């Protein structure tokens, strides 16, 4: 009897032990540091953050994607012709816009799913979240399309939404059709923004336009202008592009016309928008001023010396100075030492000098070790200006771009308007833009880590122009002169159209290298010298017409080979672009 009792007790113990219920398993299945339900407002911010590698000067863009790839293609950052210079198979590492584009679409798809599940009466109050995310998505997508042409879109994100790996291979879609879709959708979005109710949490969650619905209209319309211009110059969508340009410019649509209307992302002091990027000695060669650009901002024959009140005031705002005669200072440890007044025997640098693409390979070592590091070339002026400036805003659409778009459209006669006035306004907006951040800058960090804690020595080798000189009258006079002749006095080969595109290229500086490359492929302007790669086996002897899909796309998307594999090369000319755009005469 006692034994039976004991057995029962033992069994009872086992049953108790087995008291781990399904609920225990369920509760431990879910990750406590993640959320399982999402809302549109927070998803909108998450979705918009995905575009940062395109919209912001992130580390990847500032130190990788632009200087190592786009800046070379657009000739807007200085580089040397080492072997395989135009070939960079691994550019996905530099900022990864292609990687973040599908993630952004995925978040957008999730937003659509959440939106569709809302009760009908809730939808109008929430549509703004969706439209804002969609607008920003198209901003990035226009650029991605301009890099690759055919890209997946509709099937992106299905793997995450369905949780099934069989959805992991989206089909590629025709780039031209996607361009058309964006052009149409942006038009619809503008109308919607004009009428819909502002969602309740929109102001707080919208880190781009802070809930300003008019700014969202300006953003959508300006993007539409950018996209329409891209397809308008040649190719099957030229007529459609020109019609849209006409529709917007004649239709009194709100666009970004003034500096205060710029579409931008303000830097925040913490969180994901505390985008500071990095710094480091090793990156000198990636921040070299372009000779093509510096030469276009100063008079030939004055040896790079900038004259206040006479030369382009943007030059000292954009670049640091270099040593006067190329002499090499005796103390060479790092570029910041060059001209340091605390050091004896070192002359202050006094000229602006860029590196040019025809710097031959033989002098590469010489240039890399001796010149860049010793201040022979001007370096871009980043410290505490575009970089390390806590008041810096990451620019998405700037007013000068829209002014130059207008100037080009008027000049080409697609829309009636004063091309020269828009051209002058573009230059004025560009100069004002630089002065705005020069005046408002608040240096957060010095350049070379704590060894240079004496407040960024590099700033000693820059000139801060006397802003009072450059009033509207001065700018008008300066722009008037640029309308027909280059700063060195030579007339433009192709007249005012080249002047417009050259000034647009200068205004874009080294912050919009990707847009510059698009304009170059579209128009061939400004004409510049591109040295053929010296490497006998170079796959890309001249700047490419498009980018190849990134390696992981080639490796993992099973539709790649069939759908885009055959045309995935560097030479294919996109439907809106010119062939041989870089074959212009030596400037």
């Amino acid at each position, binding site marked *: 009897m006692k034994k039976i009792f*004991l057995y029962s*007790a033992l069994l*009872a*113990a086992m049953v*108790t*032990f*087995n008291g781990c219920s399904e609920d225990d*398993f369920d509760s*431990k*299945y879910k990750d406590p*540091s*993640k*959320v*399982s339900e*999402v*809302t549109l407002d927070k*998803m909108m*911010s*998450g*979705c918009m*953050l995905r575009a940062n590698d395109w919209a912001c000067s992130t580390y990847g863009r500032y130190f990788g994607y632009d200087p190592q790839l786009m800046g070379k293609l657009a000739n807007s950052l200085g580089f040397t012709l080492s072997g*395989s210079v135009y070939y960079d*198979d691994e550019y996905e*590492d530099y900022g990864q816009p292609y*990687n973040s584009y599908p*993630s952004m679409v*995925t*978040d957008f798809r999730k937003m659509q799913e959440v939106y569709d599940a809302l009760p009908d009466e809730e939808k109008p109050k929430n549509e703004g979240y969706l439209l804002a995310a969609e607008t920003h998505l198209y901003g990035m997508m226009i650029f991605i399309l301009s890099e690759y042409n055919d890209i*997946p879109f509709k099937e*992106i*994100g299905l*793997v*995450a939404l369905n*949780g099934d*790996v069989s959805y*992991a*291979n*989206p089909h590629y879609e025709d780039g031209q059709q996607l361009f058309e879709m964006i052009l149409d959708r942006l038009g619809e979005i503008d109308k919607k923004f004009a009428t819909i109710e502002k969602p309740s949490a929109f102001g707080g*969650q919208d*880190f781009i336009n802070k809930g300003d619905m008019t700014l969202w209209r300006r953003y959508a319309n300006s993007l539409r202008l950018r996209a329409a211009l891209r397809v308008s110059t040649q190719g099957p969508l030229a007529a459609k592009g020109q019609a849209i340009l006409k529709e917007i410019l004649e239709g009194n649509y709100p666009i970004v016309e003034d500096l205060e209307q710029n579409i931008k992302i303000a830097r*925040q*002091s*913490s969180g*994901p928008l*505390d985008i500071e990027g990095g710094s480091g000695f090793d990156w000198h060669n990636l921040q070299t001023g372009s000779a093509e650009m510096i030469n276009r901002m100063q008079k030939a024959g004055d040896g790079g010396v900038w004259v206040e009140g006479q030369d382009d005031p943007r030059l000292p705002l954009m670049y640091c100075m270099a040593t006067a005669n190329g002499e*090499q200072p*005796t*103390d060479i*440890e790092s570029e910041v030492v060059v001209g340091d007044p*605390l050091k004896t025997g070192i002359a202050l640098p006094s000229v602006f000098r860029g590196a040019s693409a025809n710097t031959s390979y033989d002098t590469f070592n*010489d240039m890399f*070790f001796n010149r860049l590091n010793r201040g022979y070339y001007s370096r871009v002026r980043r410290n505490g200006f575009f970089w390390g400036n806590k008041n810096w805003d990451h620019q998405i659409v700037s007013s000068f771009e829209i002014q130059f778009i207008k100037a080009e459209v008027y000049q080409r006669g697609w829309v009636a308007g004063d091309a020269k006035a828009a051209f002058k306004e573009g230059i004025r907006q560009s100069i004002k833009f630089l002065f705005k951040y020069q005046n408002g800058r608040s240096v957060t*960090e010095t350049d070379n880590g704590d*060894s240079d*804690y004496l407040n960024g020595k590099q700033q000693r080798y820059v000139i801060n122009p006397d802003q009072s000189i450059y009033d509207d009258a001065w700018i008008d006079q300066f722009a008037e002169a640029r309308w027909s002749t280059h700063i060195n006095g030579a007339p433009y080969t192709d007249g005012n159209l080249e002047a417009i595109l050259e000034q647009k290229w200068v205004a874009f500086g080294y912050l919009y290298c990707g847009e510059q490359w698009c304009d170059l492929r579209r128009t061939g302007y400004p004409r510049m010298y591109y040295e053929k790669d010296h490497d*006998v086996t170079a796959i890309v002897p001249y700047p490419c017409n498009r980018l190849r899909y990134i390696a992981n*796309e080639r*490796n*993992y*998307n099973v539709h790649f080979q069939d759908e885009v594999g055959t045309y995935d090369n560097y030479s294919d000319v996109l439907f809106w672009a010119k062939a041989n755009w870089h074959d212009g005469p030596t400037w």
Partner: protein
Amino acid sequence: MKTYYRVQLVLVALALSFPGSMMAEQTPKSGIETVAQQSGRITGTVEDELGPVIGAAVEVKGTHNGVVTDSDGHFTLSGVKSGAIIRISFLGYVTQEIPYKGQATLNVTLAEDSQALGEVVVTALGIAKDSKKLGYSVTTIKSDDLIKTGTPNFATALYGKASGVRIQNTQGGAAGGVSITVRGLSSINGNTQPLVILNGVPIRNGNSGTGSSNSSDFSNIGLGSTQMGSVRSNGLTDINPEDIDQLTILKGAAATALYGSEAANGAIVITSKKAKGTGITVDVNATFQANMVAYVPEIQTKYGPGTGNGDWTAEMIANDGFRKDAATGKLYPAYSAYQWGPAYDGREVLYIDGSTRAYSPISSNPWKQLFRTGTDQTYNIAINQGGENSSNRFSYTTLLETPNALTGSYSKHNFSLIGNLKFNDKLSLDYTANYITQHVVNRSQASIGMYGGFNNMFGAFLDIPLMKRMYKTSLGYKNNDRGSGPTPNEAFQYGSDGFVHGVREILWDTNEHESDELEQRLIASVAPTWKIFPFLTAKGRLSTDYTFSKMTDQSNSSFPSAASTNESSGSYSTLSKYYQVTYGDIMLMFDKRLGEKFNLTANVGWQARSEKMNSLSLGTNGGLMIENTFMIGNSYKTINVSNDNERKMELLKTAWLETIGLSYDDFLFLDLTGRQEKSSTLPKNSRSYFYPSGSVSFLYTDAFRDNMPSWYGYGKLRVSYGIVGNAPEAYAANMAYTFGSGPGWSYNQVPNNLGNENLKPEKTKEFEIGIENKLFNNRAGFEVSYYNKKITDMLLKTALAPSSGSETMWVNSGVMSNKGVEISAYGTPIETKDFSLELKTNLAFNKNKIESLVEGINFVETGDFASKVGKNYSYVGRPMGDFLAAVNQVVEEGPYKGRKIVNTDGNYVMSQDYEFIGNAMPKVVGGLGVTLSYKRFVLDVMTDFRFGGYIANDCYRYTMATGVNPETENREGEGFLPYTYTNGLTTQTGIILEGVVSDGNGGWKENDKVIAYEDYINSKNAWGTSPGTPNATYQFFKNNWWKLREVSLSYNFPKDLIKHAALKNLTLAVFGRNLFYFHKSIPNFDPETSNGTDWKSQLSIGGSASPTRSVGVSLRATF
């Protein structure tokens, strides 16, 4: 009254073990009391050839009347009836049966049992089994083999000792992690570490240095960049080798099937030492060892600092490659991390401190100044108390380490109590408690930080003692360039980049940065046993493994915060983490003879395991407000908090298990197991899964005894098949959204790394067949096993096409196989009275193959080197771990077909695609040991080896590129051609590479273009982002080595000599570890300096702390 107390104790213990309520009946009186009749009484001694045998069982056969011998081998047995048989038994000895005829004394000498070497091994779930019954391969390592050379953790004592078991230590002294790989790798993404079972309970162990957010280990405790380069530890290194009695490695699926998913990579079953015999004995031992940094790279002493002749300016050309100081007019070398400057010629030059020095090598061995001789002191005292009804062993071990790094310390205290209470002949209780507390100050830094980089190379012209004074200013700040900082007069005269700054950074980090880790761990268990019937036993077990760790990390202010309005320096961060494993099981065990020849055992049980982790970290942002004041509130900027600051993890696994064992006539054994497991890491519909195993052991020598020669003592054939399921790591399957915030707003995103709600467990199926033989009275023996292991439904974190919108997704896809042969053999060719020679060896051949991956996917990337210059891919149809890099482009057709193409710059043109270089997997690993005994001296030598496979060597690449490696010493003069650099300088440094160049007409001609040697070497070492640019092939090396792992010489003092000191045993030993390589294929570096314990981090060397060579002495005494 006494009995009543015991009942209470039983109740408490049972209540602990069985959460369910349970009533115990009054326990019967103890067996000894029941048979205590005052009839015959006999006393005696049991001895073997060495002396008294402690703990031998002396019993009256067929009764419960029995005792064990005391520490002198004595016993007294009462109540023996005339005609009774007295049975004397002890493990490993032939049992003797002597009839009692009224004799008063009985002295017995036991003989070692070489015939029936039925060793008892502890198998899954702590079930002790006679090894002859096992149908699968196990390796058992005894205490003596683990502590012979005073290794600070048990795993490093396993090198070469178990076939099919590969050990890889991350170095870093006693606080470093150890990786154990059993029978090849069984996962691409997941954990490959075996399950560690301590006294029947699974304990925390994971990979070190992998940084997985939910890591079961404390490896990812790092607090940002300051900790990135340090070498971390993992859980198994906490187990004190002094407390281990035996260690069994269960390799195949059949052996580990009962442990379930956690043991998919094998299991290491550790049994702690228990008190033996009766009375009290005390063991004391002390070990001291010195650890010397070894296998560090040599540096060249012919050429001084500088980036190369091509970089000489006009001024330098005029001054033989030196610069001229404008202020003093003195010459000085062009300081940089590179050593491509002018040859040392003894001329007077300006030094970094402003003094004048001869331009000659200052030190050919900078490591001497950068490391010290480390020491480990281990002291252990163990008190054993054995009695009729209880036994206890308490042990305390302390380990004090001075690391090889110039700063830091490590100490560990280990308290262990293990015991058994026998309440009566039916109820008993086993209990263990291990409390471990350790304190690590400044974990060792990875060696790649010391000699693998372009900024901190140690050339011969560096005065390190001077740097040790100069790295810091008199105000306590980091020293600076000439003319700058608050103390400009103390600053470096030159050398502000690379060379001097890099070394300054290392010294600053070593001395002005401190990480402090305090870890406390408690592993405790209670396990009651109830013998319900002679054939039925119930066993329960409840345990916890609880770790709490607290870490702080502080860096001194390197510049005055007042000097800048915008930034500050210094940092402080803190992290707390706890991890708890709670485990319980209950088993009903049936064991009965059925008739003459059959025996049936059957077990049924249930077990549960839960794990919980929580960590919280915080750190200052942007420096410290008040210099060198280490508080979170002293942050210069607002502290950034994200959901990375807090991590949580919980998991639960339960299982039902059954086993059936049937034996026939003690020569044929069949074992079947089944396990139904349930895991919270899997989605509901696939949460519960079953897997079986079966094994047969056939002792053909016993079956055909009459037909076997007498020297053939033991022969066994075993066959087994098992399936083990493996659940994914916590939250891998769960689909959820990430969360984050900025100032005043927050966001959600779809994660880039997707879970999968359709995930199911992966399955490892393993077939194994083997033979075991013991010959010539066990003077020789060998064992051969073949296994074929197949992992199906592989849990794979597969990479997705970027256009899918996600980066990875967990899937069940793919098949991987490991096939292999394990051989071990031993023999004693010479055995005389005073002298014996024993040899033992083992070899393991494993062939890994990925049979398939996700449909349409041909490979997964498993590593990259020098930022993509080299890659590691794992391809379908190949073993894991193929190294790839750009290779020379060659002419494809025509008369020059196959010749290397040289570019216009005189350098080779490299392929634009990655080409195969070699695979990382070894072909064979193993060990070879020799033991020589002469009288009381024992010399033990253990070597181990690895052959086959490649490894990446970043350190080699860096030392070559910087011109520090002695291989670059021959760089000019005879044998070189004149070469004119672009700066106009002509030197005798040119070479013409073998190959062809374009003839300008689409054809090829012999290469005649001269290139500077330094440019050629530099191009081979460039840090690149694509395969095409540099030649990376030469950083991959064949990785073969054979190492003298351990040598020990011990002397066992004669009993007569020591008995006056009340000593029962005294042994003195001197030993050495990691003494040297007989052979290694990597020049100038140690092939065993991989970082981390996961296989991917073992693809390259340089990640671990600098390796060491140890010598020491130990003294063991028993009172």
